[in-house]
């Protein structure tokens, strides 16, 4: 996966951390201390469509066919997550019970062009 830096222009993963203490949520969320809400940003010009990440998908096969047939005008590509993982939480609910849960697909690990 490609991490974004200050000069990145093409599709990459941008890290963004929300500190629960900073937003006043540390009273009801026991663990973890924050949420890595990384996101995907950057451009996917045609010549990098399907790089990195989805190379082995049928999307790539179709996109390659379209590229080969010079169908640029009808095809666009977007920078999207290609790998995600759950956010594990330990928190208090309304009646001060402690809940332990695992919210799927909440943390972006890698990005790629469709």
């Amino acid at each position, binding site marked *: 996966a490609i991490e974004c830096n200050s000069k990145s222009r093409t599709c990459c993963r941008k890290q*963004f951390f*929300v500190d629960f203490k900073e*937003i006043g*949520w540390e*009273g*009801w969320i*026991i*663990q973890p*201390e924050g*949420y890595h*809400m990384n*996101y*995907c*940003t*950057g*451009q*996917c*010009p*045609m010549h990098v*469509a399907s790089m990195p990440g989805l190379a082995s998908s049928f999307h790539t096969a179709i996109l390659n066919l379209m590229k080969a047939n010079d169908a*640029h005008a009808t*095809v*666009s*590509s*977007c*920078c999207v997550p290609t790998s995600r993982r*759950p*956010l*594990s*939480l*330990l*928190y*208090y*609910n*309304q*009646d*001060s*019970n*402690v*809940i*332990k*849960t*695992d*919210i*799927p697909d*909440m943390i972006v690990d890698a990005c790629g062009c469709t």
Partner: protein
Amino acid sequence: AEPGAGRCPACEMAALDPEVQKSFLIELAKQRILSKLHLKEQPNVTQPVSSAGLLTALARLRVRSTNPSITLEMPSRSPKTDVQEYEILSFAEPGPSAPNRTCLHFHFTQDAGRSVQILHANMYVFLAAPGSPGRRLTAKLLLSEPGDANPTLVGRRPLEVKRGGWAAVEVRAAVQSFFSRGGQRLTAELELEGSLEPALLLSNSESHRPFMVATARASPRHRIRRR
């Protein structure tokens, strides 16, 4: 925008001012977490559990802690994507006690619009070593509406008290009854055969607070579609 780059949502955001972008992302994170937890706003915690009691309970659930060192181990996820599994830790509130009986109140919340299936549930009670060998303790599990004088018996479990320490009582059916009936309170009455008051067996220390842990699966209530 270069030809072929397309207008992606992420590209829109890249054009925002950094401060605006940060506050936008923080609000997005808040909304995302609250909606996934089916909460309208952050809960108002009136009775937080002491960290000693919480760490002891988590240790019982074989969850290693890192803060100091908590690492969460989750039950395996259900293959159905709209079904969410979670664990509920409910710490007991002491109830009235009598010479041969003491009460422990447990509170659970009904999830409006979601049906809850209880996969496992245990009650953990830390008991001091009895004076003489072989006391039989019986845990009666009752459901009652707040304020009503006739609780419903939903379970009875014997506990053999030989040594002091944690005793586990399986209470899945009782907790499932609570979630099936709604709007009630689950109470465990501990009765002890013999002369010793059961309340004297219970430890007062925060790290030995009785608690219930239930592994639950919640799914949207069954919707009937008209064809």
